[in-house]
């Protein structure tokens, strides 16, 4: 017990105590020295680093979304506009039970089943921390009611947002298109264009039509605002702002009044109409019936409406004017005739005697004319006026498919017209080469016979037909239809017109064109296939009727006597321009299951011409009704 005895002396105890205190002092000084070293490291050596981190914590750069450009028709009528409204949005990650919270919300403001469906769809498509609208366009009263109760709804927020509206509803919906929420495919496209930064804060993007094609012009440049935020991410104050640059306003070539006349002229029929200025290629009306209300898409379409649009047998979302590929039927005849004149396979005087059918040498099969007993003696002029099939069977065979292909390609068949909105299909101008590539089969002369009257493999879209007829109307220069007329700068409000970009003249002989025009004018005169629809017109219309056979019914279509009958009915076609001596308007019309072109399609053309050329509406709207008793084509 050496230790024990060592502490007996109190004096020694004090010495030990003081030694221990001294040791403690040294330890304390050392500890504070370490602390000071650490603080100096943080506050002197690493100061810049931590300063940067603190600034990053505190400063957030918030994108300021530019106003989307508005869309106007050529007369300044608004086709697409913006308006501000309140939306109620939910950040799902901040709400424990979203469904129950929405139920509770429904006791405060009106929540429609449609709102819930749309929200659920958005929720599936987006990330949990994104703010998604449960209800858009709140009334002032709803905003107030929510504000009073907002403490009950954490994760819900009222936001002022800019909405797109399409005041014309269904009118010209296929040309204008619509905007919708940005989806994954859009994100990829934006990335590939290197425009990701410009889309920070943007929720919507143009999907179709003008909205889709001119997205870049309409969107504008995103600005930014530096804001000071707290740890909860709430903005405390603004530290600086770079203003966004609004998107350009677009003036489109459409004449909305003309568009309305054209759409109404279709009545209940499905179909398409493309009306062009034959000199410039400007699209004055672009109809695809039925249309749809683009406003449905703006806040994200709800599943029920989407199903209805997508599964409708009438296919309202399909832009028939650009994507409908139909056999052009007899509307191809003026082009066939012109091809024959140009290739010198026919002279205007060449006359056949039509027995009502055509046969190929050594083949028993009879290619029938639409008129059983035949048209008698037929020259080129008459072949167009009365639409003689037999004449064109022989003409096509004499030219051969490759000559036909070459000419049709020159006037724009078989290739996209290059109209400035997306989705156009290219139709089909067949050739020997094409058939071999496609089917590994030889071209038969019999194939050529059908092509002669616009059937067989030949397919054209309404916009192709319109461009082709405009080429006839303007003296043989191919036109590229376009919808954009001018761009109004978002900042300076200066309107810059988009120049026409027509091709070079095809060099068609004027006397040949004159001959075709004369025949087409007689189509609309007594004795012609479109005489009835043109009765009393004070201007000359050059036109050609057509009928395209509907070949087969698809298996999945339900049996409905009335409907089946209608679905088997031929498509009616009509191409025309007027006034014939100085064409102002060229158009192609397709009426699905409309029967003969002269009965349903031609009256539509008449109303459009009357309105455009005379500025008057047709006094009585003719009832569009195919008459099965009368056979003319």
């Amino acid at each position, binding site marked *: 017990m050496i230790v024990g005895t060592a*502490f007996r002396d109190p004096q020694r*105890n004090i010495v030990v105590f003081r030694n221990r205190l001294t040791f*403690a*002092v040294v330890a*304390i000084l050392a500890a*504070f020295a370490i602390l*000071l070293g650490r603080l100096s490291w*943080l506050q002197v050596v690493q100061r810049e680093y*931590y300063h940067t981190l*603190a600034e990053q914590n505190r400063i957030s750069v918030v994108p300021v979304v530019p106003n989307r450009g508005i869309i106007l028709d050529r007369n300044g009528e608004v086709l697409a506009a913006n308006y501000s409204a309140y939306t109620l949005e939910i950040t799902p990650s901040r709400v424990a039970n979203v469904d129950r919270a929405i139920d509770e919300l429904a006791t405060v403001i009106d929540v429609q089943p449609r709102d819930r469906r749309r929200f659920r769809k958005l929720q599936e498509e987006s990330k949990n921390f994104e703010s998604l609208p449960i209800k858009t366009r709140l009334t002032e009263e709803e905003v107030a009611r929510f504000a009073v109760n907002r403490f009950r709804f954490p994760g819900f927020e009222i936001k002022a947002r800019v909405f797109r509206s399409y005041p014309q509803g269904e009118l010209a919906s296929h040309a204008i298109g619509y905007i919708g929420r940005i989806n994954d495919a859009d994100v990829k496209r934006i990335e590939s264009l290197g425009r990701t930064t410009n889309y920070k804060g943007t929720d919507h993007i143009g999907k179709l039509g003008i909205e889709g094609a001119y997205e870049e012009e309409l969107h504008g440049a995103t600005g930014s605002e530096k804001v000071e935020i707290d740890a909860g991410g709430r903005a405390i104050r603004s530290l600086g702002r770079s203003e966004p640059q609004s998107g350009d306003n677009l003036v489109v070539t459409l004449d909305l009044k003309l568009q309305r006349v054209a759409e109404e002229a279709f009545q209940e029929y499905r179909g398409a109409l493309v009306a062009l200025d034959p000199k410039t290629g400007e699209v004055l009306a672009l109809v695809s019936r039925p249309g749809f209300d683009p406003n449905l898409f703006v806040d994200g379409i709800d599943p029920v409406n989407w199903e209805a649009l997508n599964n409708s047998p009438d296919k309202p979302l399909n832009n028939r004017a650009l994507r409908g590929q139909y056999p052009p039927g007899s509307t191809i005849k003026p082009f066939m005739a012109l091809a024959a004149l140009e290739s010198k396979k026919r002279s205007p005087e060449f006359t056949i005697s039509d027995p009502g059918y055509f046969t190929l040498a050594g083949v028993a099969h009879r290619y029938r004319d639409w008129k059983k007993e035949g048209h008698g003696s037929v020259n080129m002029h008459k072949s167009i006026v009365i639409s003689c099939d037999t004449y064109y069977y022989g003409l096509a065979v004499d030219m051969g498919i490759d000559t036909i292909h070459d000419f049709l390609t020159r006037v724009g068949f078989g290739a996209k017209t290059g109209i400035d909105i997306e989705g156009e299909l290219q139709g089909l101008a067949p050739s020997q080469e094409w058939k071999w590539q496609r089917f590994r089969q030889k071209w038969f002369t019999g194939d050529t016979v059908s092509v002669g009257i616009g059937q067989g493999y030949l397919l054209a879209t309404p916009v192709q037909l319109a461009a082709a007829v405009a080429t006839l109307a303007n003296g043989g220069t191919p036109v590229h239809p376009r919808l954009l007329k001018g761009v109004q700068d978002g900042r300076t409000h200066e309107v810059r017109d988009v120049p026409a970009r027509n091709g070079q003249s095809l060099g068609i002989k004027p006397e040949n064109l004159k001959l075709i025009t004369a025949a087409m004018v007689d189509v609309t005169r007594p004795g012609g296939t479109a005489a009835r629809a043109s009765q009393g017109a004070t201007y000359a219309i050059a036109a050609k009727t057509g009928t395209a056979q509907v070949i087969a019914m698809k298996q999945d279509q339900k049996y409905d006597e009335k409907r089946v009958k209608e679905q088997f009915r031929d498509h009616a076609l009509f191409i025309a321009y007027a006034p014939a001596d100085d064409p102002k308007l060229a158009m192609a019309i397709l009426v699905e299951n409309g029967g003969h072109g002269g009965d349903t399609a031609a009256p539509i053309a008449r109303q459009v011409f009357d309105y455009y050329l005379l500025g008057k509406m047709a006094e009585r709207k003719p009832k569009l009704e195919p008459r099965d008793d009368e056979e003319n084509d």
Partner: protein
Amino acid sequence: MISRLFEKIVGRIDGPLMAALALTLALGLTVVYSAGGASLDRVAGQARNLAVALLALWLFAHVPPQLLMRLALPTYLAGLALLVGVALFGEVRNGARRWLSLGFTTIQPSEVMKIGVPLVLAWYFHRREEALRMRDFAVAALLLAIPVGLIARQPDLGTALLIFASGFFVIFLAGLSWKVLVSLVAGGAASLPFIWSVMHDYQRRRILTLLDPMEDPLGAGYHIIQSTIAIGSGGVLGKGWLNGTQAQLDFVPERSTDFILAVFGEEFGLAGNVVLIVLYLLIIGRGLMIAANASTVFARLAAGAITLTFFTYAFVNMGMVSGILPVVGVPLPMVSYGGTALLSILAGFGILMSISTHKQLVSS
């Protein structure tokens, strides 16, 4: 007459120590105002806490050391009874059983032990002064181990460590031989894996977080990352009072209480930190002087342990907020918002003043 009254009031107050305390407390209120979002409510609340704590200081300064020594064992035993009570009937809050309901109020008995443990050990060594043996150190260790063990089980590791420190300081100052100390340290180091294995998950996480805060920057690492950003971004001179972005925009968690040093360091910079450390050093220095000059074993050991415990508070908190020690719930003494810690610290300084002034009376 008036000077007699003044003498009566401040006669037991140690001038130099009080001056240093006053400066530190004033600094503390300034920072609390800023950390509370420039709200006077917080300052008013802290001023009330301060009034109570200063009253305690004044009262303890008037309790003669001899009386304190007599009260040491009963206080300790009462504290122990309360701790057992907590273990048996205590209220669970935030996953820890720390509070005991007395019907009219709830108390945290571990706070009693912050004073009770060093006093009882000082009392014990005082009694054994004439015949101090190795065995006495073992008894002292047991007196220390029981309350520390009970508190650590609550679990409240921070408080247990601080109470352990206060008791250890008594034993250390009483003269536990270096050989034993060194072998204890070696033994402690050897048993680290065992300690690790009995630690709670959250305690282990705090230590791992210290080693690598970025492991979990929004969870366990968040406190320490944000507080080092605050301190580091303050630079040499600080961003200015009420201008700390980390503090004012809520990035620093618990900025009025345990992490108030981050607010102070951000707004007053390294210069402010140096001032604070100097004030602490003055207080500690004065405390150690009082201990060195105390006339009895009890007074020496109590004064020394109280002072060293105060140092421990300051160092552990500053080390934790600046990221060199794990996060334990220790406030920055006399600066952090809160009444309990302030009360026990100022009561401790009251004891120091009593030791300081009563000795002078005896010697004169």
